[in-house]
C-alpha cells in the first residue's frame, strides 16, 4: 500500500518535471526565433533597409494567395522529410551529413522506375516510392556500416559520399538520362500514373505543385515518432545516443543501433527525393534538391530531433523560405537575410547552456518553495 503511494508520488514528480522541461523547451524555441528575427531586424536597419516592410512581406506574403500556400506546403514536405532523415541518426548521436547523397539517390531511383517501368495505377506510385526509400537506405548504410563496423568518422564519410553522388547525378542528368531533343537539361517526364496527386485536385483551389506527399510526410513523422518512443529499436537508438557505454553495458548492440539509425534516416531522405520527382518536378532537374539537405539539418536541430516537432519546425522554416522570396520581389531586401536569420537560430539553439541554466534555476526554485 505505502509502496504504491510512494511510487505514484514519484511518478507525479517525474511528470511535473517533464512538463516543466517541455514548457521551457517550447518557450526557449519561441524566444530563439524571436531573438533571431530581432537580429535580422537590426541587420536590415543597419544596412539602410526598411525592416518593417520587409518583415510584412516575409511574414504575411506566403498566405496572401492560395498558390503561394501551395508553394510553401510543397517546400515544407521535402524539407521536413529531410529534417526527419537526419533527426534519427542525430538521436543516436551520429553526425550524419549525408542527406544530400541520399536525396539524390532516392530521386534517381524513383525517376528511373517511374520513367522506364510501365506499371498499373496505384502500384505505379508505390513502387517508385519503395525504390527511392531503398536507394536512400543503401546510401545511408555505407557510412553507417563504416562507422559501426570500422569506427570510420561518419562526418567525413557522409561528406565524401555527398560529393560523389552529386557529381554522378549531374553526369546522369546531363548524359544518359537527359531527354533527347530538348534544349534545357532535364530527364524525360515520369509516367502520369506515377505522379503524386496534386492537392489542387482535392481542394479545388490552385495550390501549385503541392501534393499528397504532404500526407505521406505527416504519416512518416508519426511513424518515426512511434519508432523512437515506443519500440525496442527506438529505445536502443536513444540509449546509444545518450550514453553508448551504458547502452553497451546494458546489452544493447550499439553498432547495430548506429547502423539502423543511418539506414532509416537514409530511407526517409530517399522519400524526400521521390517527392521531388513524383510530386514537384515530374522529372529529374539538375541540382533539384538545392540547399534543402543542409537546411534539413537545421530543421532537425531546431526541433531537438523530436520527429513531431520536426514537422512544426519544417513548416515554420519553409514559411520563412517562401516569405524570403516574396520579400525580395516586393522590397529591396535580399532573400539571403533569411539565411542569416536561420544561422542565428542554429547558433542560439546549439548554445545548450542557456536552457539548461534556466531549467536548473526553475528546479531550484521549486525545491526552495517546498
Amino acid at each position, binding site marked *: 500500500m505505502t509502496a504504491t503511494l510512494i511510487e505514484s508520488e514519484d511518478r507525479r514528480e517525474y511528470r511535473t518535471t517533464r512538463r516543466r522541461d517541455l514548457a521551457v523547451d517550447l518557450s526557449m524555441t519561441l524566444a530563439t526565433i524571436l531573438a533571431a528575427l530581432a537580429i535580422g531586424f537590426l541587420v536590415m536597419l543597419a544596412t539602410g533597409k526598411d525592416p518593417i516592410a520587409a518583415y510584412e512581406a516575409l511574414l504575411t506574403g506566403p498566405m496572401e494567395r492560395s498558390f503561394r500556400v501551395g508553394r510553401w506546403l510543397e517546400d515544407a514536405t521535402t524539407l521536413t522529410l529531410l529534417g526527419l532523415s537526419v533527426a534519427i541518426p542525430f538521436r543516436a548521436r551520429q553526425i550524419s551529413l549525408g542527406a544530400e547523397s541520399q536525396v539524390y539517390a532516392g530521386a534517381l531511383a524513383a525517376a528511373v522506375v517511374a520513367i522506364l517501368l510501365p506499371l498499373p495505377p496505384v502500384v505505379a506510385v508505390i513502387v517508385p516510392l519503395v525504390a527511392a526509400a531503398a536507394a536512400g537506405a543503401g546510401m545511408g548504410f555505407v557510412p553507417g556500416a563504416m562507422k559501426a563496423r570500422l569506427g570510420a*568518422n561518419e562526418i567525413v564519410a557522409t561528406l565524401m559520399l555527398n560529393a560523389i553522388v552529386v557529381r554522378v547525378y549531374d553526369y546522369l542528368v546531363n548524359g544518359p538520362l537527359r531527354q533527347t531533343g530538348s534544349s534545357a537539361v532535364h530527364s524525360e517526364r515520369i509516367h502520369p500514373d506515377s505522379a503524386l496527386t496534386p492537392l489542387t485536385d482535392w481542394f479545388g483551389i490552385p495550390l501549385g505543385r503541392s501534393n499528397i506527399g504532404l500526407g505521406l510526410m505527416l504519416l512518416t513523422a508519426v511513424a518515426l515518432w512511434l519508432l523512437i518512443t515506443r519500440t525496442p529499436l527506438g529505445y536502443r537508438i536513444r540509449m546509444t545516443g545518450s550514453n553508448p557505454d551504458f547502452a553497451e553495458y546494458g546489452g544493447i548492440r550499439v553498432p547495430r543501433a548506429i547502423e539502423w539509425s543511418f539506414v532509416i534516416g537514409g530511407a526517409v531522405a530517399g522519400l524526400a527525393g521521390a517527392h521531388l520527382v513524383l510530386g514537384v518536378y515530374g522529372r529529374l532537374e539538375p541540382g533539384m534538391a538545392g540547399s534543402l539537405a543542409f537546411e534539413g*539539418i537545421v530543421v532537425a536541430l531546431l526541433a531537438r530531433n523530436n520527429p513531431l516537432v520536426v514537422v512544426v519546425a519544417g513548416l515554420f522554416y519553409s514559411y520563412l523560405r517562401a516569405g524570403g522570396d516574396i520579400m525580395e520581389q516586393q522590397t529591396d531586401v535580399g532573400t539571403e537575410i533569411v539565411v542569416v536569420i536561420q544561422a*542565428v537560430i542554429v547558433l542560439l539553439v546549439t548554445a545548450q547552456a542557456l536552457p539548461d541554466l534556466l531549467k536548473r534555476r526553475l528546479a531550484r526554485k521549486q525545491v526552495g518553495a517546498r
Partner: protein
Amino acid sequence: MSSVLDVVLSSAFLAAVLRVATPYLLAALGGLVAERAGISNIALEGQMLAAACTGALVAGYSHSVALGALSGITVAMLLGLLLAALRLELGADAIIAGIGLNLLASGATAYAVYTLLDDKGGTTGLRSGTLPTVTLPGIESIPVLGDVLSGQNMITWLAFLAAPFVAWLFFRTRFGFHLRAVGEMPDAAASVGIAARRVQYAGLALSGALAGLAGVFLSMGYVSFFVRDMTAGRGFIALAAVFLGGLRPWGVFLAALGFGAAEALAVQLGTLDVPPQLVSTIPYAMTLVALALYAWRRKRRGAGEVAAVSL
C-alpha cells in the same frame, strides 16, 4: 594513356597542382590545429568564404590589396574565436555550431554583396586586385623546378611553409605541447596548470587565420573577385584531409596535396574524352576507400593491443 602521362609529367601540370592545392593545404592545416586543440572546426568552409568575401570587398573599396587580405584573415580568425566561445562558454556542440557558422557565412556574404553592389553573383563589378606573386632570384634557371615554382602566388609559398610551421609549433614549442595536451584531455591539462581555455582560444584563432588565408587566396590569388559560395565545399574536403592525414602535420600536408593533385588532374583530363563529372569523383572515392582502410587498420591494431593486454 601516354597523353595522360604527358599531362601529368609536364611542368605546367605540376605548377597547377601547387596552385590548386594551396587552399586545401592552408584550410586543412587550420582544421588540424583546431582538431588537436580538441574542438572540431567544421566551420572551415564558412571561414574561408567570409575571408574571401571580406578580402575582395575591402580591397575593392580601399584600393589596398594588403588591407583587404588582412581584413579577410581577421574576419576568419574572429569566426574561429566565436566557435571557441560557443563551445567553451555556452556548451554548444562544436559540429552543430560549425554548421551554424557556415550557414551564417553563406547568408551574410551573399547579403552583403547584394546589398553593396546590387549583384546576386559576386563582386566582379568591383576592381579589387590580386596579391603579388613571388619569384626567387635565380630560381628560373633551374630546369623544370624553375618553371613549376616561378610566378606562384605568395600565398602558395605561405601554404607550403605552413606545414613545417605547424609541425614546429606542435612538437617544438611549449604552446604546441600545451595545445596537444589540452586537446587530448582538457581536465588533466588544466590540473597541471595549463590555461586550457586560453590555449583553445588561441588554437581556434590560428585555425581561423589559416582558413582565412585560404579564403583570401580564392578571391585575391588568381582571380580578383568574390563569387557567391565560391569555396564550393573546399572546407569540407580540407576537413576530410585532416582525418585522412591521421591528425599529423605532414600526413595532413600529403593528404591535402593529394586532393589538389587529383583536382588538377580532373581538370586536365576534362580535355580528354571522359565525362568531367565522373573524373572529379575520383578524389572523393579515393578518400572514402582510404578512410575505410585507415579505420580498418586502426581497428585491427586496436584489437591486437587488447589481445596482447589480455594475455
